[in-house]
């Protein structure tokens, strides 16, 4: 059960849902780190990932989680960026 500044978010990593506890005063990058660790994704640096909310808005990794007014139970989508390609 999360308490204080802690909220529990549902981060969908490349399609795989992962529950992640996060401190709202921490930067978004820590949330990404935890989600990647819990989903066993260690092959790509954080910079190669992109976090979005349910409406498609990209969350800036350097900003605090509380800046996005997220509540416990919210679902976020973390996906590997497209990269160079083309």
């Amino acid at each position, binding site marked *: 059960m999360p308490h204080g500044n802690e909220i529990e978010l549902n981060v*969908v*990593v*490349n*399609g*795989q*849902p992962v529950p992640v506890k996060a401190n709202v005063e921490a930067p978004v990058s820590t949330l990404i780190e935890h989600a990647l660790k819990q989903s066993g*994704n*260690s*092959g*790509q640096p954080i910079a*190669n990932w992109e976090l979005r909310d*349910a409406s*498609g808005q990209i969350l800036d990794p350097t900003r605090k989680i509380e800046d996005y007014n997220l509540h416990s139970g919210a*679902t976020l*989508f973390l*996906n*590997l960026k*497209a*990269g160079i*390609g*083309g």
Partner: protein
Amino acid sequence: MSVVQYADPSVSRRKFDRELAEYRALGEKYRRRGWFLVDFEFPRVLVALCAPNLKPSAVVVGVAFDYTNYDACPPSVRIVDPFTGEPYKFKDLPNPLNRALPAQEISIPGMPKEQKMLVGSVQPYMQAYGPDEVPFLCLAGVREYHDHPAHSGDLWELHRASGAGRLVRLLEIIYRYGVEPISGFGVQLVPQVGFNYGQPPS
């Protein structure tokens, strides 16, 4: 083109089933974004990507995946007609999935050195040798990309562990570059001017 299943079929099927189960668990959220799971039977999946922000909403493209041999090799990904399932030729693609490249400063001939102009350009993720060819998604995590001789230095094994070939990840990219940028319907009207005639003389 059908591909021989050389990886253990039970492994590929299990991983395919996981992709589908995870997709369907969040199916309602994906549908709100305009993703419709149209058809699925191992090893293939067909998803229609729509633009719900348009009025009336529009079905933009279909995406056909083939997870044969997954994840010993990445899935095949084709942009298809969502109604027939037929892959589009390059000339018929509703959208080549353009990616904006950083703007470049270019000197203007005949102007002082410090006067430069910024030129932006785009690069399509969909690539083909000609307008009548079926294009492929030029992206790590896609079978056609890793099979291409120009990408022999970028092996699938370098991307497999990070989920580069996963269904939702690939849909996310196709949606981002192919559907999200659509802000409205483009209408081209071509007025034609001619003479109006009254009653012809007898």
